[in-house]
């Protein structure tokens, strides 16, 4: 058993964490060559933590995010999601975890271009099998949460970048997931809009959400309470942020 690298005393094992990754390895086969994207990563994230995962491109950061997001499965190691090992689950089970436990926020927003905000926010609830009336109510509530209730019937191309990202955040929130996983959420936004989005994340954190932020920007990462740095497929450092950027 590899000791968790974290020295902050927050998340050390599967028991008291929302997610706990234990010695995660991911090996890709490129032709005849094996590519070691992750070489044994161990991270725990506790309830209501706000953690940033940083690393240069090629560090394995994206692979790690995909595994945390249950979009991909590790080659070896254990991944406990609320105590359940999800490392070996099948596609459909992973889809269910993504649906109920994870709220995704992407760099490119990833909204359905032909659907209005309301439908985009409703989408996870459709797949959760929730009835139309409740779906609508919860989606409007989530849109209201990001101050976009008045844009419910606008399509993505009728919204600004910041508004689109807020719709995406509403979609991530609507299922009340265990974690919000944001991948470079400000990457496609100007710095002012980016700040607005980060302020929203701070608020969500303050309201009790668990947030995992993936970024390569130091400024953005400093909004989080803890930064995990990835390099060459390994955790390079895992530290609490001394001075958080509070906007």
């Amino acid at each position, binding site marked *: 058993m590899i000791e968790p690298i974290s020295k902050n005393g927050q998340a050390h094992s599967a028991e008291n964490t929302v997610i706990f990754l234990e010695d995660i390895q991911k090996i890709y086969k490129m032709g005849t060559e094996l590519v070691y994207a992750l070489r044994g990563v161990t991270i725990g994230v506790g309830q209501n933590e706000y953690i940033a995962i940083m690393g240069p491109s090629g560090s394995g950061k994206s692979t790690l995010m995909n595994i945390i997001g249950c979009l991909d499965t590790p080659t070896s190691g254990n991944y406990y999601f609320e105590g359940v090992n999800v490392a070996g689950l099948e596609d459909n089970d992973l*889809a269910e975890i993504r649906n109920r436990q994870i709220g*995704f926020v992407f760099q490119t927003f*990833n909204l359905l271009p032909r659907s209005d905000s309301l439908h985009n926010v409703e989408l996870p609830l459709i797949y959760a099998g929730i009835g139309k009336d409740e779906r609508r109510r919860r989606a409007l509530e989530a849109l209201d949460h990001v101050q976009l209730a008045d844009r419910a019937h606008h399509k993505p191309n009728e919204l600004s970048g910041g508004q689109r990202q807020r719709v995406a955040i509403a979609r991530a929130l609507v299922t009340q997931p265990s974690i919000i996983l944001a991948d470079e959420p400000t990457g496609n936004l100007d710095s002012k809009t980016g700040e607005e989005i980060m302020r929203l994340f701070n608020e969500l954190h303050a309201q009790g959400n668990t947030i995992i932020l993936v970024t390569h920007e130091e400024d953005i990462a400093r909004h989080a309470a803890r930064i995990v740095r990835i390099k060459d497929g390994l955790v390079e450092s895992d530290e609490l942020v001394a001075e958080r950027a509070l906007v």
Partner: protein
Amino acid sequence: MALGALRANPLRSALTMLGIIIGIVTVTLMSAFLTGLTEMFHQTTSFMGTDVYYVNKFNWGGGGNWRSQMDRPNVTLEEARELRDRMTTAKAVSVSDSKQNVTVKYGVNELDGLRTVGVDAPYETTNSIDIGQGRFFATQELQSARPVCIIGYGIWESLFHKMNPLGKEIRANGYSLEVIGVAKQVGGLFGQFGLDQEILMPLQTFFNAYGPPDPLLTVAIKAKNVLQKEDTKAEAEFQMRVIRKLKPVDPDNFGVNSEDQFNQIFDGLTNGLTVVGLTITGLSLLVGGIGIMNIMFVGVKERTREIGIRKAVGARRRMVLAQFLAEATMLTLLAGSVGLLLAYAASLYINSNVLTSDSSIHLHFSLLLIVSGLALSFAIGVASGIVPAWRASKLDPVEALRYE
């Protein structure tokens, strides 16, 4: 949801649907035609009567070797008359002879391609001749070969323009005949190629006009009792064997035929037509289906990212599969409905403008046709959508989200 994708690309959807629309129109019209054909035939063969047998050197339906049937002796007038006299289970036995492609003139009016038939008294019974105006031949007229005739309804219509023909002289291939009766309209195929376009005259008159008997005389036997018609058939076979002095080991060298056999031949024919017709028109549906499949593949490719998004927020495989299948079937059902509407409109138009006469085939557009047309459209949607939909459902979410 499924309709959204359709609306997003209306021109492309319309063009793709065109293949299915054309396919459904052709298949449906072909089915309507085949149904109409069968219907008309069965309607008109019933006119022949199910209890009438025809004695001939051939077996209808080609039982046995056709060539050996050609070599059989013809049924002669003497044999026919002897058979008529011997039959005990027959209501009537008639002997008749006919000539095709006769030209008939009345004044300046002229009709081509008619048929003249020389008949005897029992012909009225065996062939169910129904006289509309005038009367059937009197015994005296039949025996003394009087130049009189009965004309079919169609001839009355086109030669006399429905004016009173009784007592008028017509010339059939130059032979003068006085019209003493007009048969009632038969309608249908059998009217068109039968009594409606025929001129009946006494058999002897026929021989006087056109020379010695045709080698192919028609001998028609109507059973005394419909329920025991098989007995009548058996007797006809027995009597013919007696007349021809066949030994017990000799095979029949004649045929005793009935409408049932005719229907069998026809059913064989329509089955063939159905298979060929529906296969050929079905090809256009196949092409349409391939078009749908193609557009679905393109759609899956184009919407890879959307599929990624859906999977990321929790769509399971079968949900993605169901969505794309629904889109494909929606396309084909819509196209099928349009096709059915067009085909229905076309059948109405054709029935009221092209196939107008009572006697011709009518396109038969039934509820069953509509239901099966829609079912077929649905099936094509599933068949052409399943592979693209399956491919969509198998997409890896990570790669799908990365797709530009």
